[in-house]
């Protein structure tokens, strides 16, 4: 027993489009974050010396430092990317669906 309003939304091609596009973006971004994080962790576990290479000849900072910082900063920027699309064009699409359904 389905609510007729929800039934109507499911019949709306824009709904299928919204779900598909937003879902794909969410999956892609999650994959980028998780793959880069777990790749980093695997290097830590199995090839730690790779991250201990100094940034400059005879310097103390290692390339691990900017790589680690980049994981944090890039993950954060990706939340910006998601919010931009989900709150922009996808939200537009969502509002269209809501309007068409509740009119």
């Amino acid at each position, binding site marked *: 027993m389905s609510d007729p309003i929800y039934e109507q939304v499911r019949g709306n091609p824009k709904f299928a489009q919204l779900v598909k596009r937003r879902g794909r973006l969410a999956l892609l971004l999650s994959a980028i974050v998780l793959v880069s994080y777990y790749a980093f962790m695997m290097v*830590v576990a199995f090839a730690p010396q790779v991250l201990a290479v100094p940034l400059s000849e005879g310097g*103390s900072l290692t390339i691990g430092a900017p790589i680690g910082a980049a994981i944090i900063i890039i993950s954060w920027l990706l939340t910006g990317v998601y919010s931009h699309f989900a709150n922009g064009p996808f939200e537009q699409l969502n509002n269209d669906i809501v309007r068409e359904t509740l009119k």
Partner: protein
Amino acid sequence: MIRHHAKIVLPALAVVLVAVPALAAGGDLGVVEKQPINLSAIAMFLAFVLLTLGITYWAATRTRSASDFYTAGGGITGFQNGLAIAGDYMSAATLLGLSSLVFAKGFDGFIYTISFFVGWPIILFLMAERLRNLGRFTFADIASYRLDQSKIRTFAALGSLAVVCFYLIVQMVGAGQLIKLLFGLDYAVAVILVGVLMVVYVTFGGMIATTWVQIIKACLMLGGGAVLTLLALSHFGFSLEAMATSAVASHKEGIAIMGPGSMLADPVSAVSMSLGLVFGTAALPHIMMRFFTVPNAREARKSVFVASGIIGFFFLLVCILGMAAITIVGTDPQFFEGGKVGGKLLGGGNMPIMHLSKALGGDLFLGFLSAVAFATILAVVSGLALAGASAISHDIYARVIKKGQCSEKEELRVSKLASLVLGALGVVLGIMFEKQNVAFLVGLTFGIAASANFPILILSMYWKGLTTRGALWGGLAGLISAVTMVILSKAVWVVVLENPAPIFPYEHPALFSMTLAFLVTITVSKLDKSARASAEIAAFDDQYVRSQTGIGAAAASGH
């Protein structure tokens, strides 16, 4: 002290997220020395308390309905909520625990900092909008959306309460120890003070007051951290390279601290820990509750963007501070017991950032940071009490016992009573556990959240085939296995029960208990051919539309 740290690495990690208590949990604070009364710290803390009590008074005049009480009427903006989420997540343990990990272990501390961060983008991508669109007041609202109201709601509410109570004890014990150390107050006095203030904020000001306490505290912490980082950088001529070179020269392990060390030699522990922290965090009732305080999914997304920006920035600052402390604190005899450099740090292994603030900013800045640490504990326990009270009044009382047939006024009365009871319980348990090592409670909190609550939550939103029977069996499997593994792990089996060796070799059960919970939930759901099961599966389609579009959820914000 560094060697000592290596042994407590895992509990210390747990501590980091979990908060100050972990301090005690790390076994590091243990029973701390009472310090001389710190007047500037107390004065600044009093100013914070007065300000937040003023806000509570203002919030009380605006808290009329149940929705105002539980979720600030859904009237918090995305930006404000982002600050409040960051406030929830940047606990005193983040400040003290992460910086002391970097101080002791160098790059390994940084790796853990990263691990504590990466959960946030995932929460945004996979959960934020569905949480907002489906939930009303509590996490049980979502879990029981299309499943059996009394069974699943009761299980989810009890799961929330278990997490809240364990976490509350951890916070209370940590609060008592930290305040004794920083302010020179008696342990019992400190615990009672925290309990009373928490009850006042929550019963009178509800979510509005709790949110503003979080926001103010987040700003103070961010401001304090930023100023301290500037002072630390100026000490090294604003050169990270100079800071690193000096740290290498000052640290026992020399250049080794700039690369991954021994802490993560075992990938199984590392993964289990990170799974538990990431998904446990995502299922902490007081964190999830924050998603119901914004008017719609749009603001929910914005709040995660703001929160993760602040958290990420703050985490990077904390790592720089830890590195600066290696030189500034680690070579200064005034911060070591008996003035013996390399010996035991005054106040225990979690204090480097406090000593750093004294070295760079004098007693006044130390007082400020101490006040911020106290404010942080207050903010976190308030959020916990509110989440616990809503599980009792909204889920158990109004929905399960009264079957939804009770007036809003009655529900509100019960929730205020519940927060009073939780406050009293927190104080009593806090005092009872004073001399206990509470590390195992940290493991329990995150183990239960990740293994009993998270699988039901995520499957109810994502998997059509979930049934009541599957969710109950899976949740129980997660709960029982997580509790058993924590009991058999070192934190309880060796430290509390004093057996020679742990039966379960890892500190964190999530990799095993969470996997088990998922497997059992899915298998039992698939085998469930009852009529109820097919009705629940059929109900997914409507739930799915609402979770995606928010249609039907608008009423949830009550405006």
